Structure formats: structure tokens, C-alpha cells
């Protein structure tokens, strides 16, 4: 049976891991390659690198990083942040990234999803969606969740699938950073609506939150940052408990 995936997410700025990483026995917690190797050894199923560099020039350092990660890490990884063209994707895949994640650029020009999935295959195109629940409705937000749009989450998710996305990474702005659990109701609705895998993001605080997002939220994968970076939830412990609760994981 296909297992549920546990996905640590690393924020990268100018080729270095951004603050907030406090790993045991690490020489250099700022080095994404060292961290990525550590996570692979500790049982992570996949990794996401989010480039938050401010300028295009600094982004080029991302290519070197991707190349080094691909060289040394033996599990799949996704690269996101500032990707807006076929050339961007071509460069990253050539450096060894397995998947790329696009967000604002897809909202601004939805045809980009079609172009990328036709050229590179759906399997490597992840569309990240940041959304916030306002009243009874979920609205898509841009630029790391700071800019609201009038696009409705579920309509956008369906469109993204129809245009050829291979996977959706859904972050709830209402839950992100709260450590109060994932947006399971919206996640379950998304999972029923589309037939591509859904990665849950935003709200991980406890092991039970992960179990809930797989069981109640029907998520295919769960992404988190700080609970892993600070060692609050060791991945092996998490997976053992998930298995005990009947969630299939790779152990």
C-alpha cells in the first residue's frame, strides 16, 4: 500500500537555511545540504526547499544548492519560490530537483501550469496554494499569504488539476504558525474534489495533528517546519505512533 509521506520544509535565503533550525549535533545547521542529509537519514520521505531570496541574482545560488542536494541526498525533493518560467523549471530540474512548486506565478498566469506540465510532465509540477478562510469562504492569497485575492480555493484547486498539476500543496493561513493542528475540514474537501495528491501544510504542533490530518483531512502527505527543526517531534517517533494508529507509513 502507498504510505503517507512526512515532509520537512526548509526555508532558504541566499543558499542558506533561514533561522529556526536547532538540530542535535549538527556542524552547521545553516547548511541546507547537511540538514537535508540528516533528515533523509532520520526517516523523512521527501523534502521541500522554499527559496525566499529577495532578488533574482541571489536565486542563482539556489542552483548550486540544488545541485549539491541532488548529489548527496537519496530521497526526492521539491524546490519552490520565485519560479515563473519554463527556463526556471528547466534549470532546477537539470540541477537534479525532482519537483518544482509554483504559487503566485500560477495565479497570475494560470497557463503556466499547462505549459510546465506539458513540457516536463505533471509528476514534477506541484502547485502551492495559500488560502485563508474569511467568513464561510476560503480565498487564495499571494506572496506568502500577504496579498488577498477574490479567487476561491476549491475552484482554483479544480482548475489547477485540470491544467495538469501533479500535486497540490495546500497551506491554511488560518492555521500556519498556530501549532493548533491542520485545516482538516478544508483538506478533506480538497481531497474529495481532486484526484491528485494533497500535501497538508500549516498548523503542525503535535504527533496527533499529523494522525488527524491523514485520517480526518485525508491528506496524502504532511509538511511541517519548526516541529522538526527544533526536534520537538522526532520523525521516527511520529511514524511509529502513526503506524500504531493504523496510518501506513514507511518505517
Amino acid at each position, binding site marked *: 500500500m*502507498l504510505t503517507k509521506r512526512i515532509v520537512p520544509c526548509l526555508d532558504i535565503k541566499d543558499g542558506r537555511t533561514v533561522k529556526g533550525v536547532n538540530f542535535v549535533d549538527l556542524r552547521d545547521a545553516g547548511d541546507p545540504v547537511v540538514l537535508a542529509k540528516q533528515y533523509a537519514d532520520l526517516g523523512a520521505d*521527501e523534502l521541500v526547499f522554499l527559496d525566499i531570496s529577495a532578488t533574482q541574482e541571489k536565486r542563482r545560488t539556489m542552483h548550486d544548492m540544488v545541485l549539491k542536494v*541532488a548529489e*548527496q541526498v*537519496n*530521497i*526526492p525533493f521539491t524546490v519552490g519560490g520565485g519560479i515563473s518560467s519554463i527556463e526556471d523549471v528547466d534549470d532546477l530540474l*537539470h540541477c*537534479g530537483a525532482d519537483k518544482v512548486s509554483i504559487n503566485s506565478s500560477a495565479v497570475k498566469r494560470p497557463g503556466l501550469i499547462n505549459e510546465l506540465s506539458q513540457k516536463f510532465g505533471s*509528476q514534477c509540477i506541484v502547485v502551492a496554494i495559500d488560502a485563508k478562510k474569511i467568513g464561510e469562504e476560503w480565498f487564495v492569497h499571494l506572496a506568502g499569504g500577504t496579498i488577498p485575492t477574490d479567487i476561491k480555493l476549491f475552484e482554483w484547486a479544480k482548475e489547477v488539476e485540470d491544467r495538469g498539476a501533479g500535486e497540490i500543496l495546500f497551506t491554511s493561513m488560518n492555521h500556519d504558525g498556530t501549532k493548533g493542528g491542520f485545516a482538516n475540514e478544508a483538506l478533506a474537501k480538497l481531497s474529495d474534489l481532486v484526484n491528485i495528491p494533497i500535501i497538508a501544510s500549516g498548523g503542525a504542533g503535535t504527533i496527533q495533528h499529523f494522525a488527524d490530518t491523514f485520517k480526518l483531512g485525508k491528506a496524502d502527505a504532511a509538511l511541517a517546519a519548526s516541529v522538526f527543526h527544533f526536534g520537538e517531534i522526532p520523525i521516527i517517533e511520529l511514524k511509529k505512533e502513526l503506524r500504531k494508529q493504523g496510518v501506513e507509513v514507511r518505517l
Partner: protein
Amino acid sequence: MDLKIVNYGAGNIKSIQFAFQRLGYDAVLSNNPDEIIKADKVIFPGVGEASSAMKMLRASGLDALIPQLKQPVLGICLGMQLMCNHTEEGNTKGLGIFNTNVKRFSNNVKVPQMGWNRIKNLKSGLFKGISEKEYMYLVHSYYAEDCDESIATSDYEIDYASALENDNFFGVQFHPEKSGKIGEQLLKNFLEL
């Protein structure tokens, strides 16, 4: 060891090269039939859409070469699928090395299958030291039907062939280059065949 990766424009080739590099081997890309035919071992990769990959293969004349190779050949992902008789993807005729057909998963499951799945019914030296409890990383929308040449099966809606063997030809649906230490063990086994 002379290890060649068939380079016909379809593939996640960098990751495969890096995986061999981690094992201490230099895998060289080649689309030159004279070089490929002389290699000790050949890797036939592939990612993307079947009919366009087959077109690229034909354009380089490699479609005729691959079935004639005598050394161990390992097809990975789409590479394995193209070694079968036929694939539903783009209604594409394959190389006919493996006597099975490739079909699309139904919409009763999420497509593509993406992630780690267990490999079972292991039947080949390719899996030396690898137990039935292990997992491999897969990303695919199409699967090879279970058949006599299956050397591993996986379960996603149905049991399908996740690895195949016929004489010197091997194929794996999963990505050993992305499947952690277990995947590296499989690549090592292939090199030691």
C-alpha cells in the same frame, strides 16, 4: 566498470548519475550506439510522456539497439514501461522486451501514485539483501500488468509489476536513485550482476 546511461532526452538523468557517484561509480551519458553496445552495464532511464519518449528513441535509432544488447540493462520508470509490449499512454508500441502491457490506473485511486510503496514477491538477484518489508519511491500514472516476468509487485488498487526481468534485461517502476539506502542497495546489486 564501463557504465552507460542511455541519453535520449527523456529523463531524470542527473539523479541517477549522482546515485552511482555515491556508490563510487562513474556513469557516463551516451546516445552513441557504438559506445552503448560496448558498455559493461546499461541504464535506460525515462521520465515524461511515453509516445514522445518513444519518438526521441526512434529518432536516435536506439529503439533498434536496446533489444539487441547482451549485457545487463536496467530500465527505470518510463524506461521500464517502454521495454514492455505496449502502453496505453499515447497508445504507444513498446520495445517488446517484457511480455506485458502498460495501463493507466483508474480514477478510484489518486493519479499519479506518488510516494513510497512496499515491494513484495521479490524473485531476483537484483533484490539481494532487500527484504519484503522495504519500500521504494514511485511516481507514475501507468503501471505494467503483473506477468510471468514480474520479479516484484506492488499494490495500488491492484497488484502490478513493480519490477521485471527477462534474460539480461531488468526493469524497475520505482526510482532506486531516490529510494534511500534500499534503492542504493538495488543499484549496487545491479552493478554486481
